[in-house]
């Protein structure tokens, strides 16, 4: 029961995926904002975008895997939530999947617009699925807008979890950090 989720709390895989993605997504946002300001002769001019693209693909794979994992696992208990909180948390939690998918897909479409693959570190290449001249422009605008939107939703999500933790004194944040109560 340690690996899988239960109604009392999240299993190891969900918790790992959650916190890797939390660090990854916030880190990618900062990295993305920073890398586009680098001067040409910066030692990071090439490596920063390389890392951004590589991590983006890995996060995309993790996102899809996590979505599948979420579907086949029991839903943690939400009975303590008010009707508004329940609706809002569902919108945010399920909204993250299409939002992040579109964010990562749009980034991939920038880099592959000319038919070049995305190189994930020196590990493997993801080939271009759509090769369309000029696609990098709309893809880039969408990527930027969705990045800000994602961070806005992250802030709401984090604020809500802190509210549950410090104001409601519930285990909602704890169960994502240390899992179900140790008795189970």
């Amino acid at each position: 029961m340690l690996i899988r989720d239960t109604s009392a709390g999240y299993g190891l895989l969900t918790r790992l995926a959650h916190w890797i993605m939390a660090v990854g997504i916030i880190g990618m946002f900062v990295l993305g904002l920073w890398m586009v300001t680098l001067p040409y002769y910066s030692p990071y001019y090439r490596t920063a975008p390389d890392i951004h693209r590589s991590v983006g693909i890995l996060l995309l794979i993790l996102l899809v895997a996590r979505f599948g994992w979420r579907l086949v696992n029991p839903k943690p208990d939400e009975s303590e939530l008010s009707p508004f909180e329940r609706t809002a948390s569902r919108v945010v939690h399920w909204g993250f999947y299409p939002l992040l998918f579109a964010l990562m897909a749009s980034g991939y479409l920038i880099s592959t617009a000319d038919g070049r693959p995305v190189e994930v570190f020196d590990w493997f290449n993801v080939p271009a699925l759509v090769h369309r001249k000029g696609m990098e422009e709309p893809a880039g605008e969408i990527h930027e807008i969705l990045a800000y939107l994602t961070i806005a939703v992250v802030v709401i999500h984090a604020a809500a979890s802190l509210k549950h933790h410090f104001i409601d004194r519930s285990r909602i944040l704890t169960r994502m950090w240390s899992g179900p109560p140790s008795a189970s």
Partner: protein
Amino acid sequence: MKFAPQSSVSLSLVSRSRVCLAVLAVALATASPAAAADYVIDTAKGHASINFRIKHLGFSWLTGRFDDFSGAFTFDAANPEASKVKVEINTDSVNSNHAERDKHLRGKDFLDTATYPKAVFESTTVKMNGDKATIVGNLTLRGVTKQIEIAAEPVGGGDDPWGGNRQGFTGTTSLALKDFGINFDLGPASKEVELTLNVEGIRQ
């Protein structure tokens, strides 16, 4: 009655000048190689290109082009210094064969195509030196208008196989990026970009 002969004289003058105009028109139409004519640059069928090249780190030439532009010129083989040319470029059509770089080139560091979607060159004077020409004119790029000189020469011209008439030229010029407000530092070997224009005009 006294004025009748006069009026008949003036009538004949009018008809004579009409004949002269008609002869002149026929002469212009038939002897066209010697007359100034208007040409539209054949971007429709892709017989024209605006290419650029800039050194990468001083190690190699990076080449690219503007895919979308239009233009026209007037040309008179007998009086080439009377020629005029105007070219308008859609800057967001910049194509260096790398999507991420093209996106960067369209951005604020370089062409800022959202703010400055057009670049325009319009000639002011043409100076001939034998077969070669120096086309002086104003280039507006990234909102900055500056006089530039294009070293041009004819490539060929004459009747095409489909009933039209064409004239083709090639020209080169060099621009300092900072002159047009492009201050992104590409390194000491990459301060200037060379432009090569290949145009084929179809006589209208």
